């Protein structure tokens, strides 16, 4: 299956979730599918979207947080699975887009390529709900199950094909400080409390 098709099947799950995307394909494709301007899209700090998402989840424990990473990003920070296993709330969902390549730099093969079983690694790290899906029907089934699940933290691996797509800059029309303020203001609305204080910082 293709990444964009798989992510489109997850949008019902995201409707009432806080979304944090790792750089590259995860951020670009999630934007292409949703144009969600309340998500946080990392453009760097490769591997640490899931850690940022964990901080969001701990700061707002009544919210479901959805972290979306590529398998290249996860490989940069595999220790996050240990940390999520022990500390993430039971509704936390980490989605890994697994295609075995660094897609946004020209589908360059990555360490492990397609042979890595990320769900098995996650299960071994102690994550109680870890599953790989390889068809759109399975993605839909998993999204429906995750929507009400308190059996996590969860790791959902999307087994997708590497694609021959052009190398493009991040498509989101804002970055830097604006990314912080857009996300933070959305959190203020969602949580009903201040993030930035009376003077706006």
């Amino acid at each position, binding site marked *: 299956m293709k990444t964009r098709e798989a992510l489109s099947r997850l949008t019902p799950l995201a409707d009432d979730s806080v979304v*944090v995307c790792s750089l590259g394909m995860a951020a670009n494709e999630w934007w292409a599918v949703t144009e969600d301007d309340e998500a*946080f899209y*990392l*453009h*760097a*700090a490769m*591997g*640490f979207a899931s*850690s*940022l*998402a*964990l*901080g*969001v*989840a*701990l*700061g*707002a*424990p009544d919210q479901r947080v959805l972290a979306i990473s590529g398998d290249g990003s996860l490989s940069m*920070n595999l*220790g*996050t699975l*240990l*940390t999520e296993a*022990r*500390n993430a709330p039971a509704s936390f969902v980490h989605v890994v887009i697994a295609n075995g390549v660094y897609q946004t730099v020209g589908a360059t093969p990555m360490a492990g390529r397609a042979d890595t079983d990320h769900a098995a690694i996650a299960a071994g790290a102690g994550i109680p709900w870890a599953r790989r899906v390889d068809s759109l029907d399975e993605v839909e089934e998993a999204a429906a199950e995750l929507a009400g699940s308190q059996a996590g933290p969860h790791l959902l691996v999307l087994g997708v094909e590497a694609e021959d797509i052009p190398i493009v800059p991040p498509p989101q029309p804002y*970055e*830097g*400080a604006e*990314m*912080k303020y857009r*996300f*933070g203001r959305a*959190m*203020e609305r969602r*949580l009903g*409390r*201040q*993030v930035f*204080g009376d003077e706006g*910082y």
Partner: protein
Amino acid sequence: MSVHETAMLEAFDAAVGELGLKVSAGLPDDWTRPLLDHLRGRGDVAHVDVAREAEAVAIVAGAFLTGAPSAAVMGATGLLTCLGELATLHVRHHIPALLLVSERGTPDDGRIYQEVQGRRLKPALDALDIPWLRVDDIDGLRALPHAQRWGRVQKRPLVVFLSRALLRDPEAPGALLAR
């Protein structure tokens, strides 16, 4: 536990309370271990033991974006490992973060493997335009809430180096050289 360490942790506890800390994360060196033990034991702080220090700085960034006061605790070597994440996440997006870090490699630190951190970490922070302060005695811990506010005004990470005299032994030979 020594009389000094007991007093230091009492002052740290008071500072954490005044900070209103809700989320903490960290990975210890031998100097910062008591602080992390203390945070882990507090019932009002969601504390995360991480596998790598860069996780901790990203976690406190995420907590900031929910309005939850947060802090990361680590050794100087750990801070050195996450300069890239601090530059490309916090500095790039103007996200403040309170980082409590052991001030290793000072003249009262006899560990050869901390020597480079002592000479190069602060210049590296300066190069990234990340401000830093140092706290050298127990009374100085009262300034942590002010440091947190200043870091927010700066809209970037603020490193508070905690000296050996504060964390370990104010009477140790060499402490005067580190001041």
